């Protein structure tokens, strides 16, 4: 008796599940375009990774090109410039992760404290507009202002009797120029997501804090930062996945013979060797190597974040 009862219940739940599924059908259909997008544009091209293990000749195609195993990876690790490029890539990523990454958070915290609505709006617009300029424009502007011979700032300096600064060619300045340009272009734009997170903070928390006598700084520390914590962690993990992607265009534009020792990164190397010298297999191997490192870092960071009790990205 009891057995048949549970069976009936079983059938009932199954039926309910089917009903639910049927009700959700339109929503499942809505996933379809997104799914297709990923399959067509993300998963299918992954097949191209195969050429990293071939001596790919575009005129022979996938099928006729010969297989070479890990030769291309060996060549990469034996390249005399490998460590230099690796070091530069990590350095620039470190700049991005530790010096650039906190800036938008600070910007959003500051903007959040502004009480004058029109000023807040205006400041925010001014901060995020540079995001829409291309790197070509930004680098050319910097050259116009700072080139040693004709740059406006340098001409000003020299008429005032100061030394000219070789900002674009002295390798010592390269990282600084890079970082400042990134901050100028992206800080305001990246702050938007943090501002959104701050907007969702319950106002009663501030009221309670004021009652308890907390100053503005205390409020930021005990209310705003905790509210941002999960956003910060997720964005940080996502950024770790791109540790080896330093962005190609910006660096290529800043690169010249004099700063090449600090400015050559994997992305520019791939462009030079892969696209300009048409070594497709080799550069695919380099790309794969980059991706694997990024994947490893994301995995580790995700585990760490779960350990400290936050949600990871997956």
């Amino acid at each position, binding site marked *: 008796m009891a057995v048949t009862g549970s069976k009936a219940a079983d059938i009932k739940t199954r039926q309910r599940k089917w009903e639910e599924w049927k009700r959700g059908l339109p929503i499942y259909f809505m996933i379809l375009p997104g799914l297709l997008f990923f399959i067509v544009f993300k998963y299918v091209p992954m097949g191209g990774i195969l050429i990293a293990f071939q001596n790919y*000749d*575009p*005129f022979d*195609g996938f099928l006729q090109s010969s297989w070479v195993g890990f030769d291309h990876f060996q060549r990469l690790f034996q390249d005399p410039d490998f460590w230099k490029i690796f070091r530069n890539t990590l350095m620039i990523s470190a700049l991005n992760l530790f010096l650039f990454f906190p800036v938008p958070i600070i910007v959003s915290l500051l903007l959040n404290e502004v009480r004058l609505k029109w000023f807040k709006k205006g400041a925010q617009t001014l901060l995020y507009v540079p995001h829409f300029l291309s790197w070509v424009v930004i680098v050319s502007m910097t*050259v116009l202002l700072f*080139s*040693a*011979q*004709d740059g406006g700032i340098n*001409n000003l300096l*020299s*008429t005032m009797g100061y030394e*000219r600064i*070789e900002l*674009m*060619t002295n*390798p010592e300045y390269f990282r600084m120029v890079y970082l400042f340009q990134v901050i100028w272009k992206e800080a305001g734009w990246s702050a938007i997501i943090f501002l959104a997170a701050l907007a969702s903070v319950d106002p009663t928390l501030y009221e309670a804090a004021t009652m308890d006598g907390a100053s503005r700084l205390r409020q930021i520390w005990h209310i705003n930062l905790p509210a941002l914590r999960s956003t910060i962690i997720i964005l940080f993990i996502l950024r770790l996945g791109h540790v080896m992607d330093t962005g190609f265009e910006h660096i290529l534009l800043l690169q*010249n*013979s*004099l700063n*090449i020792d600090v400015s050559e990164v994997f992305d520019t190397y791939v462009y*030079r*060797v892969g*696209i*300009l*010298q*048409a070594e*497709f297999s080799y550069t695919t191997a380099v790309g794969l190597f980059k991706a694997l490192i990024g994947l490893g870092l994301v995995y580790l960071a995700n585990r760490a974040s779960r350990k400290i009790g936050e949600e990871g990205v997956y």
Partner: protein
Amino acid sequence: MKKLTALSLSGVLLTTAAIAGCAGGSAVNKNESGKSKAGADDLGEKITINLMTRSYAGGGWPPNHPVIDELNKRLNIDLKIEWVPAANYPEKLNVMAASNNFPDVYYITNTEYVKWQSKNIFMDVKPELSKYPNIVKYIPEESLKHFNPKDKYYGIPFYYQEARDSLAIRKDWLDKLGLKVPETMDDFYNVAKAFATSDPDGNGKQNTVGFSMEISPAGTFGFGGPANFLTSSFGLANNWKLDGGKLIPMQTQSKELKDFIGFMRKAYAEGVLDKDFPILKSRDSLNKLEAGKSGIANVNPQQLYVETLPPLTKLDPKAELVQVLPPVGPTGLRGTRGLPTADKIVINSKIDAKKQQRILKLMDYMLSDEGYDLVKHGIEGVHYKKTADERYEQLEASVKDRQFLLVGWFFKRFDPMFLIYKWMDPKETATIKAYFDNNAKYVTKNEGFGFVSETAIKVGPNIDKKWMDTMVKVIVGQEPMESIDKAIAEWKAGGGDAIIKEINEEYQKSK
């Protein structure tokens, strides 16, 4: 979605067409392919031709350009041109190679041409040339042979003037400072130094440079800009130099390099050489001349009256340019690095034979008297008009249409005056010709030109670039003079030795 529908639609159409074709009978098809082998000169059928070439400032033509319309009419073709900015051209070719999908006929840079020659993607035009008298007449055989295996011509050369660019100097600046046109290297240095420090433009500010130059991104041709005219004075080769029956690359000429780099290093330290040179792009030193910021530059005489002088005289009505011959070096040497024709126009080997013949016909026509006149001067009544006997007047449409683009950027006769038009001032034409004639006397030949080395294709650009990076570092004083020898050793170890060997073998074979 739209694309998908279009695709499936065209699929349906294709199938229908195929079925219809079958129904029409194979006899017709056979007949046609038989005819095409005989040389389809009859122009009976309209053929679509996809053409790709480089473009420079101002970009290419819109699809419905009067010159294209005229060519379409005369050759019964539908010419579709893709203009790719020159800076991205090698990139574009390589991307096309990755998908193995090339246009019907296209301009190809030498690096890619040499690399892909054996891949059977270019048509061998040698057996066909006898049918095309103008190509034979206006393209020298020697140039056809360059960079080709024996008995094959995988492309038709794109003409470069060997001694096109010339050194020019601001005569008004010289007069103002009481200096003469420089003759020797020392004169050159003194003039450049005076230009940098003695305020030649008289605006009370020290904002002029002595001389400027660009670094060629590939690092192969030495230095661009005015420095091009200084290397020979120190005995540096134009890439390859013949010494005792052996070819020697400039990258390994230790003594000559030290003399030259030493000179540049001094110029940089004393503010004579433009401090910005490492970040300058291809036309920047000329831009500086046109902007009145420098008084010495590498000019293209053909562009002198069209591009260079107008902005300059607008800025300073007294501005005047004169030619400077390459300065005489410490040991009496002088020269200008000749730039012989290396790039090619190739025809896709995969396309229909009939189409190939029509493309050759088009190219042959562009070289004929009638066709050359059309692609160079445009259409009478539209781009120019006849005012009297042998007198012409340029019409406004030619400024807007820039009727010369196909000649300038795609294909032309081996003719130094290819951008000199019949409506131009005879005095200007004479000046331009004088620039060319003077320069041609001092050409330093590249003795290794036209030979192919496998290693150079593979590693050449990379080691050349590194070598050049070091030279630049030495010039600005970031590295000591001894680094030159280190750079030479690294160049040789990185593949240079193999390149020297291969090029010399090719040279021996050619004798």
